[in-house]
């Protein structure tokens, strides 16, 4: 089955699945997004051979970004080996025949769902985010007409109402992911549902592109763009994480997943970035339960 279908795919699909006109349209949206950092650019999102919510926005942005020379990596919640990541990686292996990798440092285009890799990215890399809901004001203002007006006029008081509600209800800003940021002092942006731990990394050397397929929006952060997490003077932004080192590689600076290991409630903390964890263990680092794993 495998060889024949792959070969059939090679001849049947245009490079990276989308036709050239569509990719051009998406590239125009990406360029506009880069020119106006944080601004949500509408684009004519296409039907993709996967359901909404599986990263159709990110896939379209990746398709428009990839060149035959690129090396592609896909992560889902930091992991290269989840269904979603594997499917998307296979999709581009088949339709674009690009090289793929799980190594952050080797990749030139990384598509991500809900994480930023721990290893700092470089200027020659592009990070593509899958975005479910691009509109940070949606939580309190359901009208799209009104939220667009609010962005246009920089009326962002509502964003702080959301944070106020958090503190009033929980004693602290409890928003732990999709934590809103202000870009270059202008647009308030939803960084997609990355943990707030990743927010400081949004100021980086690589190009960051955000694609929302169902919502038909693309936005972007050029390299070294100023990205400030919203907060109150007396409740400053805190990119906290679990107070624990990774049980496999012993890293104390990485974002951790909590894994329940048996019915008795035993648990372990492991790096959510699987490549980072593996690379550390290959280099000889070891966590509390590293030997067993």
């Amino acid at each position, binding site marked *: 089955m495998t060889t024949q279908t792959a070969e059939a795919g090679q001849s049947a699909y245009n490079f990276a699945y989308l036709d050239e006109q569509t990719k051009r349209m998406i590239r125009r949206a990406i360029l506009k997004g880069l020119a106006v950092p944080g601004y949500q650019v509408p684009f004519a999102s296409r039907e993709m051979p996967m359901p909404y919510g599986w990263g159709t926005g990110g896939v379209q942005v990746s398709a428009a970004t990839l060149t035959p020379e690129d090396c592609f990596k896909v992560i889902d919640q930091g992991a290269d080996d989840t269904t979603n990541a594997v499917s998307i990686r296979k999709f581009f292996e088949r339709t674009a025949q690009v090289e793929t990798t799980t190594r952050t440092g080797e990749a030139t285009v990384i598509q991500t769902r809900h994480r930023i890799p721990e290893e700092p990215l470089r200027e020659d890399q592009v990070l593509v985010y899958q975005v479910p809901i691009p509109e940070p004001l949606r939580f309190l203002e359901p009208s799209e007409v009104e939220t667009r007006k609010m962005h246009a006029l920089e009326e962002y008081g509502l964003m702080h*109402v959301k944070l106020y509600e958090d503190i*009033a*209800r929980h004693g602290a800003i409890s928003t732990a992911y999709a934590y809103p940021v202000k870009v270059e002092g202008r647009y308030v942006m939803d960084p997609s549902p990355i943990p707030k731990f990743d927010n400081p990394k949004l100021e980086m050397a690589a190009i960051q592109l955000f694609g929302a397929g169902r919502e038909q929006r693309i936005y972007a952060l050029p390299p070294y763009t100023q990205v400030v997490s919203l907060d109150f003077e007396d409740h400053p932004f805190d990119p906290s994480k679990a107070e624990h080192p990774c049980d496999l590689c012993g890293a104390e600076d990485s974002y951790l997943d909590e894994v329940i290991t048996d019915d008795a409630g035993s648990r372990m903390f492991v790096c959510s970035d699987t490549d980072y964890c593996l690379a550390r263990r290959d280099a000889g680092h070891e966590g509390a339960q590293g030997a067993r794993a």
Partner: protein
Amino acid sequence: MSGKFFEEFSQDFSKNLWGAPQPLLQVEGLSKFYGARRGCADVSFDLWPGEVMGIVGESGSGKTTLLNCLAGHLAPDTGRVLFDTRAHGMQDTVTMSEPERRMLGRTDWAFVHQHASDGLRMNVSAGGNVGERLMAVGARNYGDIRERATDWLGRVEISGDRIDDRPTAFSGGMRQRLQIARNLVTGPRLVFMDEPTGGLDVSVQARLLDLLRGLVREMGLSAIIVTHDLAVVRLLADRLMVMKDGQVVENGLTDQVLDDPQHGYTQLLVSSVLQV
């Protein structure tokens, strides 16, 4: 002694009310048409600082259209609405840019809707509702915002321990008081009210009226109140404008218009009120 006493008063008089040098709001020849139908036509008046003006008329008389044109919610077809802005003096709010007008809408202006659910965020706590305007103009200290919200809830007679409850848990009267607190927290100078006591129980109305009177007096607010309830304007408004078919038929001191109406329509309106 009395003569001197009086001279001082008279001098005060030659100045304007509260010594204000000019009106807060000047409306000139305002008209709004819906196709061929007249919403309101050729309305002109001045509102001075500290004045409360009532607009009465039956449903469809154009009073709500007029209010929405004044508050910038509707674009009038002709006419000017000059407002004495803090920064640049008299400005025509009809021709000013939308950002400027919206900025007025959350600083110097306030709008109290008939239905509190139109003027409140029903899924946000009382404190968040009151704090929103503060945050909209740049307040970034949670403690300060909360303190001012608590203060304002007290001023509208909502107990401080309700600050984290949502308006959905409030009675109609409480919602309306919350809406007022949310609007007045930034110290606006002009408040637009659309049937503020409509749909409330009579006993709740009385409390709200008393509250509004006190706030108007203490804050030196100017207000424009649209209502069909003549009892409400008698108690709240200094001046009264009577509208019929989109036009102002009579305009004057509230008790004068109600007790000595000059226009036939006003006479009919006043004589149609049931006596209690």
